[in-house]
């Protein structure tokens, strides 16, 4: 993706080892807060939230010897910009095999920016049932000043205050050729 837009790399702020450590800490915080893996339901937001949720799932299983529940949410059909975006994003499947009723949901995404993706994910979750709690875990929080909705993360891998002209890319081996988090900028801005 970086190449498509000729983005200029400004800094790599996390490498693979730092990402691993951040995810380990997030996993610990999540089970500490939930007091174990009971009723814990990790829900990855497509696309990059999905592999992150999978990694948290594995770490939680290692920590607790118990598997949390796991699902995937695709927010395309719940976006609020369908009529303004030129080419709409592609629809993928939402996979919530286990009932979310009375579960402790952890929504997992790569970057928290405006909060609109999370709004869409929350709306969709509510259409599936009534969870006991919903919390948000993100690898990168770009800072409150960018938020367009009253939404904050409960578990944050790293807070990275950024300018609006900057782009944060979380690169994961599932989609990209390397594992890293970088700050990029669009040329001529």
């Amino acid at each position, binding site marked *: 993706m970086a190449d498509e837009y000729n983005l200029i790399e400004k800094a790599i702020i996390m490498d693979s080892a730092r990402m691993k450590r951040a995810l380990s800490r997030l996993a610990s915080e999540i089970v500490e807060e939930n007091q174990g893996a009971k009723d814990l339901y990790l829900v990855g937001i497509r696309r990059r939230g999905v592999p992150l949720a999978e990694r948290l799932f594995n770490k939680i299983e290692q920590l607790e010897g118990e598997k949390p529940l796991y699902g995937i949410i695709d927010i395309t059909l*719940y976006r609020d910009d369908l009529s303004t975006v030129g080419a709409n994003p592609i629809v993928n499947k939402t996979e919530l095999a286990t009932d979310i009723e009375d579960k402790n949901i952890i929504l997992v995404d790569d970057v928290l920016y405006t909060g609109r993706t999370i709004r869409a994910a929350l709306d969709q979750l509510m259409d599936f049932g009534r969870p006991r709690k919903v919390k948000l875990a993100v690898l990168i929080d770009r800072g409150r000043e960018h938020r367009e909705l009253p939404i904050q993360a409960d578990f944050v891998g790293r807070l990275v205050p950024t300018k609006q002209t900057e782009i944060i890319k979380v690169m994961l081996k599932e989609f990209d050729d390397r594992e890293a988090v970088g700050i990029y900028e669009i040329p001529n801005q």
Partner: protein
Amino acid sequence: MEKPFKRRDLLGIRDLSAEEIKGILDTAENFREINAREIKKVPTLRGKTVINLFFENSTRTRTSFELAAKRLSADAVNISISSSSVAKGETLIDTALNLDAMSPDCIVVRHGSAGVPHQLAKVSKAAIINAGDGTNEHPTQALLDAMTIREHKKKIADLEVAIVGDILHSRVARSNIQLLTKLGARVRVAGPKTLVPDDFQYLVEKDLIVCKNIEEAIEGTDVVMILRIQKERQDSAYFPTLREYSIHYGLTHERLNLAKEDAIVLHPGPMNRGIEIASDVADSSRSLILDQVKYGVAVRMAVLYLATGGTASSE
């Protein structure tokens, strides 16, 4: 207003490339899950208006389009011939212009004459979806048939498909022949000579065989698609009696046994039990007639989504 559907309307399978067809099917695949939810509704097309303009009777297709629109949160309005001003003498184009003045985003049209959706597409600002035009095409039926076949056979390329019955008057057959051959299947057609013209091969360049009888068409096939005998055309004497048709062209278990062991049976409905298809075949586990109806909603959701601005999924 610019229409975001790359191919602004869905008028027929004829216009679509194999890639476009696969894109619609992949998108529909992802919409299926919504129809299995407890709350079968997503807010995607909130504020969009879909008009179902039906000049011919239809229960299945109209209901399917209406549910598809409603499950995407669009507002669906149904207009049928008996309640329209066409009965009062308004021309087709005037009807279209009047509907257009109310700014719908999409008009789903069924008409007894071929080419009506194409005419509407020329004058309307809304995206036009063909829900069956005369004997020409019924693209969403072919798409849902393809989805049913793909679900059970995991592919379409290289399959042998038999289509049996009134090919001459069938828009379902025309759309299916085009779609299946575009995706690499081989199609055989059979029926009374009056209803299966020898020169039917003109329709596609290759992979279509006109068979002499139903046995020849069915032997060794993966899919048997039975068409409805249109009783309303009976006065035209295409064949002597319904009973004779049933004897020579009805699908019985005996005939179905000529097909591959795992062959599946499709019928676009409404079916005449005991005429083109024996009741026990229609109710057997090889018959996927109700699956077709089920997938129909997902296919129409995908088509509405794409016609009003979505991008097709790809694997």
